[in-house]
């Protein structure tokens, strides 16, 4: 079973560590998830495990999904997410199997994936932290503008047209965001809660996917090794 679970962001609070230091934490309700589908090379061309989370009433589901969950012997679930797995991992997984917080027992750092809060159509100051223009010195109606977007000069977009990828105003937020290598501060297996240091993308009650940290920064890698 790959070390991945889906859950729900509950909210933030603070906890004190052994040294009495204040640690901001996000509480995440993690699972229990159930395996709703197992994909193998023979049947689907690749290996993966589909996890489902959050029981719902049948009337809030669709016939297709009810049937899909039923094949795994499950009641209807709200969320389904697929996780890539190795052939060995897939072989060890049973359809309908329960997956709980236990799979993170030996893990100290996790990646948290969520859908960030939508900010609507945002200007460059908010979206990319541009500095804006002068407040005075004769500036008129251009205080939050991004300034010039192109010229004839090559490095600013050749042949009189803006360079590709130029940062401009537009829709901000409501996109998939991965927070990497967040430390696990505490676990509450009874209530299926995981406390992670720092903020997590999305609104409270939002769906989050948590997996073992893919890559640790140097300092964190040392920390993980030490303890």
């Amino acid at each position, binding site marked *: 079973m790959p070390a991945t679970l889906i859950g729900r962001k509950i*909210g933030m*609070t*603070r*906890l*004190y560590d052994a040294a009495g230091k204040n640690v901001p934490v996000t*509480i995440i309700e993690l699972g229990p998830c159930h395996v709703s589908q197992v994909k193998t090379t023979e049947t689907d061309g690749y290996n993966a495990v589909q996890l489902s989370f959050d029981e719902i009433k049948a009337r809030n589901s669709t016939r297709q999904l009810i049937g899909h969950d039923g094949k795994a012997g499950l009641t209807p679930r709200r969320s389904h997410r697929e996780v890539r797995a190795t052939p060995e991992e897939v072989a060890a997984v049973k359809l309908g199997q329960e997956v709980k917080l236990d799979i993170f027992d030996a893990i100290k750092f996790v990646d948290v994936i969520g859908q960030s809060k939508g900010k609507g159509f945002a200007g460059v100051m908010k979206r990319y932290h541009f500095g804006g223009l002068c407040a005075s010195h004769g500036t008129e109606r251009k205080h939050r503008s991004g300034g010039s977007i192109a010229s004839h000069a090559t490095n600013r977009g050749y042949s009189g047209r803006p360079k590709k990828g130029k940062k401009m105003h537009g829709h901000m937020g409501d996109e998939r965001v991965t927070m990497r290598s967040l430390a696990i501060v505490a676990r*509450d297996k009874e209530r299926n809660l995981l406390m992670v240091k720092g903020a997590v993308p999305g609104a409270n009650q939002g769906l989050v996917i948590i997996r073992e940290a893919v890559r640790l920064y140097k300092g964190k890698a040392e920390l993980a090794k030490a303890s």
Partner: protein
Amino acid sequence: MSQDLIRAVEKSQLKTDLPEISVGDTVDVHLRIVEGSKERVQVFNGVVIQLKGYGISRMVTVRRIVANEGVERILPLHSPKVAKIEVKRHGHVRRAKLYYLRDRVGKSRRLRDRQRGLGTVVPDDATPAAAAPVAAETAKA
């Protein structure tokens, strides 16, 4: 529902032995201070001018005068670094935040003792017979 979960998580770290503190009280805050490998307790005595936050985020602002200079510390009540809080006196106040004390100089800085209600003056050696629950709390602490 989720608020309940947050409360439940905080609960493990909440202190249960805190006295009832209100704005205007004169308190002794015992602070754990770590210097290198040594730990000692320092007492910060002053007037509570503000209480804010709930649960584990409950904060108290304590103001005192050091060398003729006002010093305010905002302390998380449930932090392990706050070893103990003792209520010394209850001041008579008519406001939730005593920011006006910042502008006061000299004798006008003092607060009259509270005379009414539960919290009349609690002497240090209050016997449980002194009745008021506040007194009992203080004695316990």
